[in-house]
């Protein structure tokens, strides 16, 4: 086993444990922290694939900004284990069935996809480096890129309008 493989298995264990803890822990603050750990592990996977930019942006945007807002809301509403409403048994059952259905659909959709034959380029590929990514984004995908920025702008204006409403 070389160091990449060891790291891969370690990160996988952390990611899966974190993801399970998000769902199972009773305290919402623990859930958020477990989600942050999961994001870290996934960023580690990106780094193993040599996609450094993606890894760091994943940390800045998701773990650094969005999760802070989650934590803000949870702390201000003071959600604790005691205040957490206990759902009844049938609702939990329905949730499990719905989740299982989603899993089934995803597996069925990906079963025939040709991604099975492509092997991840661990530690070698350079498409994820910031230079190549920037060139691709601003040469080939410049219009979708700019349109998505307009989308963000409209979301921001919408938020301001909602916030200003007396």
């Amino acid at each position, binding site marked *: *086993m*070389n*160091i990449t493989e*060891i790291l891969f298995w370690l990160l996988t264990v952390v990611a899966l444990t974190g993801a399970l803890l998000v769902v199972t822990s009773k*305290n919402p*603050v623990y859930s958020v*922290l477990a989600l*942050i750990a999961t994001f870290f592990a996934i960023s580690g996977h990106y780094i193993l694939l040599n996609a*450094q*930019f993606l890894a*760091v*942006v994943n*940390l*800045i945007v998701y*773990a*650094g*900004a969005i999760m*802070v807002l989650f*934590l*803000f809301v949870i*702390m*201000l509403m003071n959600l604790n284990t005691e205040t957490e409403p206990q759902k009844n048994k049938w609702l939990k059952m329905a949730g499990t069935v719905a989740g299982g259905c989603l899993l089934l659909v995803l597996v069925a959709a990906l079963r025939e996809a040709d991604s099975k034959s492509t092997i991840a380029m661990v530690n070698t590929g350079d498409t994820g*480096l*910031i*230079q190549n990514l920037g060139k691709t984004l601003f040469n080939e995908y410049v219009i979708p890129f700019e349109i998505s920025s307009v989308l963000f702008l409209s979301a921001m204006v919408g938020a301001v309008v909602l916030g200003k409403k007396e």
Partner: protein
Amino acid sequence: MIQLAIDLAFILEKAILIGGIITVSLVVAMYSTWAERKVAGFMQDRLGPNRAGPFGLLQPLADGLKLFMKEEIIPNASNKFLFILGPGLAMMTAMMTSAVIPWGKQIEIFGRTVDLQIADINIGILYIFAVLSMGVYGIMIGGWASNNKFSLLAALRGASQMISYELAMGLAIIALLMLTGSLSLKTIVEQQSAAGGWWNIFYQPLGFLIFIVCAFAECNRTPFDLPEAENELNFGYHQEYSSMKLGFYLFAEYINMFMSSVLMATLYFGGYDIPFVNDASLIESMGMNTVAILQGLSLFAKAAFFIFFFMWVRWTIPRFRYDQLMHLGWKVMIPLALINMLITGVIVLIKENGWPF
């Protein structure tokens, strides 16, 4: 049996480097507490600590010992796990920045050429931003887990302050990156120390001003120390903490200060570049190792000046009100940074394509 294929010498080299840098950062942070009180004493026309050792030099050790000896109190109604996790996170995120900073060029030991940088990743600055945005968690978790209204308020203040000033800081850095064309801190320093290269402060004075103001806010230093405003919030987010946990929070602030000083020196003041001297010719005449030490000292001298500047401001300028802080961040700093970015972009374009009119 599975063979472990790991380059032991490489790991050893990095481990020694990490250990060395962490030790140096801790010692610098320790003596920053001493220097802060000496500077405060000087500014207020008194002596400052002078009992322990010559010039009070042993004062940090005495303070550390005091903090270790104090009783460890964990409030009954607090969340114990998160209460302990908070200071640890604050300390860890403070230390993590040091990984991408180049502390000198290269040294040669036992025939190995060792870069004086833990990791030269090509996204150095983005990594620093990622670590900075993690820094919020130490404060937020600590403040919330204490189960105290003042702590929670201070934690929310601190978090929103850091998020707000991160934006302006990022925009200031983008203007710098337009000029350097690289995110790697090593490349940025090499560009500045190359023969004929100028320090970035001459190209980006406004960017540096925005950066230093935001650095003050990120480190929660006066005039932006709203999270621990003692006349409004008692003691801020670490009110319930005692003993070394409190020590960790206080210490993390000084490490943050040291790291942002080093970062400012690296980005805008040539990093380990020795001023007025051509480093390349110096290496030929004095040997690689001596120059590396001199370069390290040069970086530390620049950082020491910025640390002094942090203290100077702390004992000179009173604290902002919270709405003034937010006004400054969102309505002054961000527009200024955007204008700076626009001007830099126009100049870069004209330099590349010539004057089109």
